[in-house]
């Protein structure tokens, strides 16, 4: 590939690439907007049960959450017992 060719390849890649990025993201804007509307219709009343998700995850399953709470409770007892 000779140098002038390289330059025109670069310009092509720029036009082409930016064009594609805009087309892609425009389609994403459109599909996201449509998706949000469709989803909004289906679970309109959803009050977002954020509180359902565990506060701490720590790679623990639910059983171990229990353990964490129990050690904390234990720690509190000990803490009080020390006084």
């Amino acid at each position, binding site marked *: 590939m000779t140098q002038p060719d390289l330059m025109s390849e670069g310009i092509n*890649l720029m036009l082409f690439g930016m064009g594609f990025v805009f087309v892609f993201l425009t389609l*994403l804007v459109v599909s996201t907007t449509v998706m949000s509307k469709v989803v909004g219709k289906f679970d309109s009343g959803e009050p977002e049960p954020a509180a359902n998700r565990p506060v701490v995850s720590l790679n623990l399953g639910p059983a171990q959450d229990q353990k964490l709470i129990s050690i904390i409770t234990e720690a509190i007892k000990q803490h009080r017992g020390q006084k």
Partner: protein
Amino acid sequence: MDMVNKLEMLWHGSGVYNMTFGQFVMMVVCVGLLYLAIKKNFEPLLLVPIGFGGLLANIPEAGLAYSSVEQAIHMAKPEVLEALGQVLGVAASDPHALAEAYETSNAELHQAAVNTANDLGYSNGVLYSFYLAVIASGAGPLIIFMGVGAMTDFGPLLANPRTLFLGAAAQFGIFATVLGAVGLTSMGVMDFSLAQAAAIGIIGGADGPTSIYVASVLAPELLGAIAVASYSYMALVPLIQPPIMRALTTQKERQLQMSQLRHVGKTEKIVFPLVLLVLVAILLPDAAPLLGMFCFGNLMKECGVVDRLSDTAQNALINIVTIFLGLSVGSKLVADKFLQPETLGILSLGIVAFAIGTACGVLMAKLMNRFGSIPINPLIGSAGVSAVPMAARVSNKIGLEANPQNFLLMHAMGPNVAGVIGSAVAAGVMIKYVTAG
């Protein structure tokens, strides 16, 4: 062999005796990187392993960054060179010619040369092994991208999808840099191929794993410089962006307060990565590895039923891969590969890429304000380069300077994550364009 010979051998095998000036310079550079990472907090999660990997790679005679064949050639024992020369069909007298023949050999000869080197007692350096497993395989950057996906919240983007345009505009930095690189080549200042120019351009995407992935596919020989530029400039975002943002906006524009983002439901967040993946599948399969793993990570996070996998992807797994990815990138900082004029070109072009990307993001926001109804503070445009979450924080900070009530952080997170998608799309286009060329 008697004692004196052994002492001589130890001396001839020592670092002082063998250290080249290039290796010395690179050790200073790597200590500099570590200083920036540790004292100045420059993207330490990557720059500490990269800097240390670079130190290790430049230890004379240790050969940690070299393959078994490269080590055999470096040692330059006549009988070894002879054997390799026969395998590769090159005159054994010239180690450089041998090394080049090895690099350009086909898979069969490559394997034969490796067999010969192994038979003669040479083995891969440990950093080279890490490089093969983590980068050459393509797996490392993809696994990190999965973890990044599992840490990304698309809520702000979903609340205001138009900010995707900001993420698109900021990718102009990428392509302008490609043009710069081919321009420098046309002027005879540098000598980059189109593939190399594309790999350099992606620095402007301000996204570490994307840069490393593209470089490993299109221009592995430039990987070290590209990764170092990428992470260094990401760390410099708070210095590079503000002057550009101030120059392109008026005080009044900077004061503009944006309306509060709507609440985004859980189902929307779950469906979004699937929508994105379908678009990728339909339009640009070459971006599927990067965006596919990214969407997978995000789905694991949002679906709420595989929290233990999502937590591992965000913690143990991404940390493990980061350690080895950093060391592997560091292995590309060996003096003879890094201390080339191209590196200076890459470093200069990289910072230009960041600046242009920032400017285009801001200008796009101003353009959208001219045509759209809901006003956008142009300061969030700069966040479109990605550099998550640093660029969004910069937008917020400059906004607060102009108006102490102007909290832009959440608004800037939209273009910020849009920039991640945008540069992954740009990466896919460039890989498609270049490899099909």
